[in-house]
């Protein structure tokens, strides 16, 4: 059972999604505004937040940023348009994934599960025999923990998953398509902006010099790789 906080202003959509979620056995709290969502965050302690971007009052983007200030709870954006720039901004603000409305209960369920798997410790991780040290970074795949200079970094689920995946094969280049499939569990031709936005966020947290990244490097025309350090 998963605790889902749904922030969606349209009453019909709110009821429909809630119905679908409850039917799938999730405990759901549905609110109509970003402000109400922020209030429910602490008492309800959701495992995942479904966030509509078009909200009256505090916008979805602002809500996303506020949530990220205090919590690393997985956030999935609900958007009316896939090509909306707000989606990119939302992803860069810390959202883990997005769903384009109208979406069936199955799609929402699948996307939620994929995002939640990123938080769960990976059993078959190559780093299961303890934390590995790369430069100033200490990556613990078992505990899903990343430290820099010994201090634990606050990373969103997608960021951790991406870093774990890349660092498991240092120096190997992965295309954005491969990362989409492996980290986001999207189809091959999913939205590569997910990867780019997440890399951007990750670099902001782990790199010393964003313009000249050391850990997550870009291989032009191919994709990304970890190192070589």
């Amino acid at each position, binding site marked *: 059972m998963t605790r889902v906080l749904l922030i969606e202003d349209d009453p019909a959509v709110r009821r429909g999604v809630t119905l679908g979620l409850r039917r799938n056995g999730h405990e759901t709290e549905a609110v109509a505004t970003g402000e109400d969502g922020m209030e429910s965050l602490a008492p309800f302690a959701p495992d995942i937040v479904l966030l509509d971007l078009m909200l009256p009052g505090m916008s979805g983007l602002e809500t996303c940023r506020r949530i990220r200030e205090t919590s690393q709870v997985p956030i999935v954006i609900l958007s009316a348009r896939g090509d909306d720039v707000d989606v990119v901004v939302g992803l860069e603000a810390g959202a883990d994934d997005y769903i384009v409305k109208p*979406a069936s209960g199955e799609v929402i369920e699948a996307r939620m599960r994929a995002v939640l798997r990123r938080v769960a410790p990976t059993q078959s991780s190559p780093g299961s025999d303890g934390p590995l040290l790369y430069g100033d970074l200490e990556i613990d795949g078992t505990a899903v923990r990343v430290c820099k200079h010994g201090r634990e970094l606050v990373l969103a689920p997608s960021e951790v998953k991406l870093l774990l995946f890349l660092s498991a094969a240092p120096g190997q280049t992965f295309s954005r398509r491969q990362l989409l499939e492996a980290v986001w569990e999207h189809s091959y031709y999913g939205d590569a902006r997910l990867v780019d936005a997440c890399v951007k966020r990750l670099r902001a947290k782990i790199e010393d010099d964003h313009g000249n990244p050391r850990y997550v490097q870009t291989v032009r025309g191919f994709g990304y790789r970890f190192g070589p350090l």
Partner: protein
Amino acid sequence: MSRRLVRRGLRTRLVVAFVLVSAFSALAVAALTFRQARTAILDRARDTTVHHLRTQVGSLAPDLPAAPAEADLRALALQLDRAGVSRDWRTAVAYRGGAPIFAAGRAPVLPGRLREAASTARTALVQRFHHAGVPWLAVALPVTRADRPAQPSGLVVYASFSLADQERDVATLVAAARAGVLPVVLLSVVPALLAARRVLRPVRRLRSAAENMAAGALGTRIRVTGDDELADLGRTFNTMAAALQADAAALRAMEARARRFAADVSHELRTPLAAMTAVTGVLHQDAVSGRLDPEAAEALELVAGETNKLVRMVEDLMEISRFDAGAAVLDLDEIDVGELVGKTLTVRHWQDRVGADVPPGLRARLDPRRVDVVLANLIGNALRHAGESVPVDVRARAEDDHLVITVADGGPGIPEDVLPHVFDRFTKGDAARTRSEGSGLGLAIAAENARLHGGALTAANAPGGGAVFTLTLPRNPP
């Protein structure tokens, strides 16, 4: 510029006409002046000569005896010659039809016709003639006695002299006229060019304005100065441009409204659809649970299924609206084409029904999602229309700097009358299947996606039967 010079343009024609007119008038003026001056010169020479001769004869003839002998006549000729030294004439005197007698060694040149005419004449006769290439003037003066002027005395005095001096004066006149005409004609080129420029400037302005309009700048207007016919033309042009611009704007506004309406409608439909789609899963679960009345279960299934169709249609409408609004964006990524085609097939579980032939290592820069949409549309169409057991093949090749992907099926092909319209919106290949799976926008969207890449999508029937769709994409779009 050189091209323009040799072209028989308005400028050339204007200049030529101007120069011709000025040359003609200069020549006419020169010719008239020349004629007048020449006549005046020659007339004066004649008149003074006749006058002088008459004076001399008047003073010398009375001394002649009534029936002069040849010696008398010769003496008179000699005296006359001396008197005419300044004119350098040569004289001869004839009496009663006799041969003209002249001073020794000073035979005058006399045309025969003059002598014939002189024998019966009562007044002075003058004839101009050419002798040895030089113009001469000959005068025949019948002498009358002062006391009997009505009766000729039979004495005729001849005088002739060269008009070379006068001819020289005339030649000088001709040279002067010629010297005047040429500079005038040459100088007339300058005002001609200026005039042509003045006339042609508005024409040029008009032309460049028309070119701008043709290029789509409907806001083009020309500055109209003056009040002549060209200014009127300019004003008419401006009126036409304004009308055209207004019409185009109205048309665009109408089209934009129509497209906005389609976009707005589909957008508005999405919110209720989002609520409905979220519960179709619930409906489906209940319908198949067996806990419901069969009719209610069937109704639920119908609602769930049709809701999903409606969602697909609205999504396609939204997509085409984005193309219409120019809001569709390419998200380019360099990918392996074989991998892309493979994923398109496996995700839809088509890998066993569709053959794929892509050379390994073929890479291209494209928007994988959009190309997947195109391929899925083409292959889905082929599978639907060609039937279960018919082979469908996807083949990709690099041709120069293009990536060419063909989707061919062994089905009945596309009817010839449908072929030109396959990419039109809401065209369906088979009228009997109007309520098939597609929204009727699938191929239109596929074609738009190809265009967005700077490529093209074409449909044809293979010589051996079956439909062939060819997607051509630049390997490195801008």
